């Protein structure tokens, strides 16, 4: 029980030390130019979330229970995070396991989930219009997004990383971007980051999905892709001729996004996250999906 309490304290306490919390944690791995961007993007808004609670009497949770299925906005194109396995026809990945854990907690069955695919640029809209109960889709917690939606406590420490062809022999981020043609997904944190600091890029190509960047990179139409750390690893896992280059910048956290009014659901999901870490679910899912591409030791991602 003490373990759970400590984890809960960590989870919710991630931002209690104020805006500098996550940014300071990022310092050892972040590059020189990063802290300012990191603050602007993550900005310590992680602590705005509701305290974890197993209470299920709130209106939103009751509505989900009555419906008998949890509607989750996911991606079908993020390898190892949320993707459709063509062999089995099932949507699988780390984010999917997480969504099933929430369904299991609230509805008693990990299969009582309706997965609805949502394009990157439509994530906020899908929540605001109530098309989905929550979104588990490698979504970075930012202060800007907090204006429109509510986030759970962080479930994965992330940031931005550069992916480049191995042949380019890039050793750091500045070298990989200066004078180069970069690619980012529309409405992504990476796009926001390059808007703040273009790093001397010659051109920034904006596409619908970060995978489109890998296609363009393979075809030689762009030189580098800036994307979430998690997705950068997924790209490298799909194409052995590209690699992640330089360190992580714009340190941030991924969270489950929900409607602002659904505070009862946010609190319930936060409780699920506490339990998910405590019962080894998080680690098992990491080992299954991510260890091969992101490293055997998940310590960096648990910050």
């Amino acid at each position: 029980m003490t373990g759970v309490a400590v984890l809960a304290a960590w989870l919710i306490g991630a931002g209690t030390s104020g805006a500098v919390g996550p940014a300071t944690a990022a310092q050892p791995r972040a590059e020189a130019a990063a802290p300012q961007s990191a603050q602007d993007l993550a900005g310590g808004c992680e602590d705005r979330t509701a305290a974890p609670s197993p209470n299920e009497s709130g209106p939103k949770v009751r509505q989900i229970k009555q419906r008998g299925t949890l509607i989750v906005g996911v991606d079908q194109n993020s390898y190892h995070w949320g993707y459709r396995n063509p062999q089995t026809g099932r949507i699988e990945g780390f984010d999917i396991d997480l969504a099933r854990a929430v369904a299991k907690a609230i509805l008693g069955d990990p299969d009582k989930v309706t997965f609805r695919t949502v394009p990157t640029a439509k994530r906020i809209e899908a929540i605001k219009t109530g098309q989905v109960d929550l979104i588990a889709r490698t979504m970075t917690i930012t202060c800007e997004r907090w204006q429109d939606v509510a986030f759970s406590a962080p479930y994965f420490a992330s940031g931005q990383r550069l992916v480049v062809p191995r042949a380019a022999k890039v050793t750091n981020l500045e070298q990989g971007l200066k004078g180069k043609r970069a690619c980012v997904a529309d409405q992504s944190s990476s796009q926001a980051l390059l808007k703040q600091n273009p790093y001397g890029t010659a051109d920034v190509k904006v596409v619908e999905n970060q995978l489109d960047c890998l296609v363009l990179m393979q075809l030689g139409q762009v030189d580098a892709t800036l994307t979430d750390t998690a997705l950068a690893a997924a790209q490298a896992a799909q194409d052995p001729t590209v690699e992640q280059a330089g360190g992580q910048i714009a340190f941030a956290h991924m969270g489950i996004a929900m409607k602002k009014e659904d505070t009862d659901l946010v609190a319930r999901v936060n409780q699920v996250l506490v339990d998910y870490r405590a019962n080894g679910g998080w680690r098992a899912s990491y080992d299954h999906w991510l260890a091969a591409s992101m490293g055997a030791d998940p310590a960096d991602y648990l910050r």
Partner: protein
Amino acid sequence: MLAFGTLAAWQATGRARAADQVVSHSQPLSQNAAEIYRSLADADATAASAFLLAGDAPQAVRDRYRADLDTAARLLAEAAARTGSSSDAQQWVATLNRQLPQYAGLVETAGADNRQGLPLGGAYLRYASKQMQESMLPAAERLAAVEAAQLDGDYADAGAFPWAALVLGGLTLAALIRCQVLLLRRTNRVFSPGLLGATAAVLAAVLWLATGSLSARSDLTDSREHGAVPLRTLDQARIEALQSHTAENMDLVARGASDTYAARWAALTGALAGPLAGDGGSRTGGGNLALARAGAPGEADAALARALDLFTTWDGRHQAAAKSNEQGDYDAALRTTVGASDDSAEGVFTALDQQLARAATAEQTAFTRSAKGTDGVLDAVAAGAAVLAVLAAVGVIRGLGRRLAEYR
């Protein structure tokens, strides 16, 4: 008089050549360009079907994709050989020749990635489809537009009324009559059989030229209104149906990575069969399918009536698939869209496309039938006018010769 004959023959021959050009050259080229566009659009739709079915793709789907690429390549070679080297058409043919192998390569890569279970495959196919939609199909469309403009030009040339020859004919006639009136006054001889014959010959030539041209013109107008124009509307409808099918398949390929395909489906089917009614299920009517049917000859009409029914079924399938996808049942959406049964959207679309092809064949036959006689008529006009003019000249020489002899 001989000048009139020459001009009449020359103008009528020129029109006959233009009419022949319509039937043997510009219309087939224009139809070829439409066929190139159709093969490319079909390749795009079929590539998406094959991708969605992955390992389960039946041989027929793969064969259809290959056949589309082969047809496009063959027709491009034909178009390159038959259009002039300075023509705008060559530029678009070259663009398409360059991009066709690139496209095929992208589709292969997409399939290979997909078979390994990598989501990257879907991104590749979307890229390939984008190249098709945003670069290749517009080039094919420009090619078709160049050929259609050529066809319109030939129609105008063939149908132009031979005014110069007719005016000259009228002047000749007036001169002949004046000549006879003068002779009447001077010699008091009432009629010269030669001059009278010449007048009759010129009058006949003018009437022959006028009625022949008018008749050829009405044949051409007929072939255009009942052949070329409905065929163009039908081609348009066929393309819209195909492109709708592509959009519907690509929406599933994108797996939610993009919502552009759903919007494209709505726009294309709206043009094809009218926008959705307020209830979100039925169509308000109108659209190119109905338009193609309105101008269709008898044989094509039956095929188009069937096509309209099939569209309603297809529309229903599509809405069912979209609903499944919306509810998160991607596999059900996949089955409803590209499943092997004839009931799937794919099956219904294929039947619809066959009906449209049937209608197109019927209309092509009707066109050739009505346009074919035209160049013959115009050739006869030219020959007739020339013969009559020569007869008239002979008559004048004989008539005037006799009078002149009387003076000696």
